[in-house]
């Protein structure tokens, strides 16, 4: 019996139960209110519908809480109960082995039970299904009980004087607040999970070794000096900004100061298309077109220098994937991040400043260089900061076109690796949890999060100040 319960499709059942409860709660409340009305009693404060909503709300919240608890705790509880029941023979297993055994039991149970020849496994799976089944049954019963209690309680309140609408609206407002609070919950979740895993990492690897070590070899041996990764990230972001900063800024100046309304209307969306192209597409483009071109030119420079006699061996590394290829393509990707915001801040500079400069006889370019750009400078700096933060956090382009070797080299044609590349490399494929190798990815993630957060905060603050000044 309990084993059959274990096979219940809980997702559908929970949803169905909640739908039924809400519908019946609503009709119970509304019918009761309307009965009063038909009986010709006093005038109601709230319409019948609101009484219905009120009852439905009370029927909805208790089972929702139970369902939440089930989602969070059902599986760990069932596994915990199961492992406490396991016979002596299992106690010789290490905790990791036991964990993976339990995991396979849970998987087999999720597939609908085990029908193979391993008798022990079949028994354990059967027992697990039983435990899980009783948990599921208990959850459903509890939900139903909660719903009925809630509805009974709320039903008694329905009366002409009861201000159901106010209660419902307060409930709705609380729900709206919860939705807005998800944003905070996400941030808290990010910080908490990154910090927790990073602290476990730093318990094994000293903090200073991680930040200032120059040898990174997480895959093969336990060397966690992240300096080469920071260098690679910095180098590629620098190359990207060397492309994006002038191109983005001059595009913004041209579009906001020189271009006709028509040109602006057509060109601006085109420019912003660059930001809409998925980064994996940029990565493919970098790998397929730009990286071979960079390599070919590096080889050309090498042979040219050798021919000149300026060098007696290859000067540039000319790798098939290179920092320059990734940086150039990333630069193109972040152009719209620079140009859009710069465009906005240049447009926000009041026309009185322009008119004043023209009245003094300044040419357009002099006005821009000496009046508008200084006035818009904070905003422009903010747009650059946001672009840098984008470039640092960008993943797919560097994963595909920058390489895997952690080293410090100023040669742009060599392959460098970045923080994001290493996070992907460490967490895809076979990952064993709890090893410093996996945990180091979270330490890198923490660094990435903190650095981009600082850039963003500064940029947002500057933009805010700037807006306050001119708007």
């Amino acid at each position, binding site marked *: 019996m309990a084993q059959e319960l274990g096979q219940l499709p809980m997702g559908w059942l929970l949803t169905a139960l909640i739908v039924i409860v809400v519908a019946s709660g609503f009709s119970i409340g509304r019918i009761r209110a309307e009965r009063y009305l038909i009986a010709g009693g006093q005038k109601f404060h709230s319409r019948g519908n609101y009484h219905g909503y009120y009852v439905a709300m009370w029927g909805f919240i208790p089972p929702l809480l139970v369902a939440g608890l089930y989602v969070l705790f059902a599986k760990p509880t069932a596994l915990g109960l199961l492992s406490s029941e396991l016979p002596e023979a299992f106690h010789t297993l290490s905790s990791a082995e036991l964990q993976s055994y339990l995991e396979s039991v849970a998987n087999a149970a999720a597939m609908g039970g085990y029908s193979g020849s391993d008798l022990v496994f079949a028994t354990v799976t059967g027992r697990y299904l039983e435990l899980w089944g009783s948990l599921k049954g208990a959850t459903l019963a509890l939900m139903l009980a909660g719903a009925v209690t809630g509805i009974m309680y709320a039903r008694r309140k329905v009366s002409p004087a009861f201000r159901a609408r106010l209660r419902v609206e307060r409930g709705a407002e609380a729900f709206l607040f919860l939705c807005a609070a998800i944003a*905070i919950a996400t941030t808290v979740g990010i910080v908490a999970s990154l910090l927790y895993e990073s602290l476990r990492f730093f318990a094994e690897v000293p903090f200073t070794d991680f930040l200032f070590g120059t040898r990174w070899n997480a895959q093969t041996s336990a060397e966690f000096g992240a300096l080469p990764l920071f260098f690679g990230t910095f180098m590629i972001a620098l190359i990207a900004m060397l492309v994006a900063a002038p191109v983005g800024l001059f595009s913004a100046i*041209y579009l906001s100061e020189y271009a006709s309304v028509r040109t602006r209307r057509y060109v601006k969306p085109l420019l912003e298309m660059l930001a809409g192209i998925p980064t*994996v597409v940029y990565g493919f483009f970098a790998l397929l077109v730009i990286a071979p071109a960079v390599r070919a030119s590096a080889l050309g420079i090498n042979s040219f220098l050798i021919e000149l006699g300026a060098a007696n061996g290859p000067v540039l590394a000319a790798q098939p994937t290179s920092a320059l290829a990734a940086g150039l393509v990333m630069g193109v990707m972040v152009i719209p991040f620079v140009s859009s915001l710069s465009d906005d801040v240049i447009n926000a500079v009041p026309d009185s400043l322009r008119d004043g400069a023209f009245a003094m006889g300044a040419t*357009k370019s002099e006005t821009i260089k000496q009046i508008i750009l200084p006035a818009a400078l904070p905003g422009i700096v903010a747009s650059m900061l946001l672009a840098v933060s984008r470039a640092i956090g*960008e993943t797919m382009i560097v994963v595909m076109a920058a390489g895997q070797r952690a080293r410090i080299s100023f040669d742009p044609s060599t392959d460098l690796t970045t923080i*994001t590349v290493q996070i992907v490399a460490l967490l895809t494929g076979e990952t064993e949890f709890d090893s410093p190798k996996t945990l180091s990815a979270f330490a890198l993630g923490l660094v990435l999060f903190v650095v981009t*957060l600082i850039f963003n905060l500064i940029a947002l603050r500057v933009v805010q100040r700037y807006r306050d000044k001119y708007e």
Partner: protein
Amino acid sequence: MNNAQDNPFRSEKALKRLRRRRNADMRFQGYGIVALGFALFALVFLISAIAWKASGASTYHVIRVDLELSPQTILPEGDASPEEITRNIEGFYSLVRNDLLTRFPEANETVQSKRAFSSLIDRMAVLPLAREVADEPHLIGQTTSVDVPLSDDVDMFLKGAAPRAIFLRVGEASSPMRNAEEGDFKIEVDRLNKVSAKIAAIGQHGAEPTVLLVADKSVGRIKSMEDGDVILEILTGRQDQFDGASVKAVIIPSPEDQRSVSDQQIAWALALKAEGVIKRVPHFSLLTHTDSTYPELAGALAALVGSLLTMLVTAAVSIPMGIFAAIFLEEFAPKNRLTQIIEVNINNLAAVPSIVFGLLGATLLLGTFGLPRSAPLVGGLVLALLILPVVIIAARAALRAVPPSIRSGALAVGASRMQAVFHHVLPLALPGMLTGAILGMARALGETAPLLLIGMVAFVAEVPSSTTDEATALPVLIYSWASNAERAWEPMTAAVIVILLAILVLMNLAVVLLRRKFERRW
């Protein structure tokens, strides 16, 4: 009266200065045009490079033969269930191969030659045929026309991609004369000088280029040539077919040991093509097949469905939640510290690198909540959190665009604040909110990095049917195909990119249309 010399603004120095300043102005404007030109050029270059690459995958070569589906080979034990028929790849494969082998006696001679011939088609290429027969058992014993994709190496050669080959018409051949050595013969060809000129133009890279002569269904390899005379070694077909036939030369610069197809395989492929057995057909299997380790059999269907399921989860979570959050912040939030923190938070969250959301998904959703790895459910949730700030910001802008008079009017006739918002403001703001939501969804559809971290990069050969099945998504498929070494994957990857970009363009088009239909000036 002033004349030109006395006017300080007309003096030579002043005019020169003015000219300099005007030139500087022109230069400055020029920088802007150059910058804009560079950005637009990059966009056009990127898209055309990918489109050009993808065009190579729009068609592919199949072997189309009329085949008798003999029961002896398909059902060796007399009777079989559909699963057993599907599993009998070997039977179907030998059926196709043996049919082709009857045309080429030389391929039957040795084990090596037979193996070389077999590799024209990958074994798994008959799987769709096997599935079709398993579904419709009445086909067994009948003769039907079947399409079997050609191995990707041969396909790439026939498309002229790799190894690169040069095709030349060299006019008529004389009747063949027997040469001293066994199997070789000598013919005279009209315009052989074209071939020698071409070889000279390619330049010598150490190895001699291979030159094949094709006459109808016969292919020979040139052993040596001297002004108009060539000594030809026959690879497939018959000597007498060269007699007076118009001959085509195929020059392959790369040496045989450096390519994935041998001269003999090329000869067979050319002969089959001349016979009309090899046909170039539209590559629809890119949309109807699932992933495979063989490029010619792989398709994006599983990833397409995986992306769709992921997007459903993302939309179901992020759109209502984003809209409700925006309503709270815009209409109900008291001006206090908590609200301010939420605001700063949302702005910051919008700029957090996407990979960090992947880390959150890996620890919280997979670790703490124990949700299944590689599932669209988890991917969808992570992407929902990722685009939530985008949706909220767009929804708030839409709410702000509704004039306060609407709210005041509703309140004036006795509506509560909640009623004013839900009955009057929200319906007016909804189109604007939806356009923002679609843009957020477009961003989510292109995201790759967070999905990699929650394991959606697994090789998925079956179309996922629910949000908890193992699945992958289009951008992740692009990433994994791009990391494959074989050249044949490049056009395939580019083709999937074109599909992805097409979907994104459609979504943006929907936004434009929505805006045009509902745009309202107050």
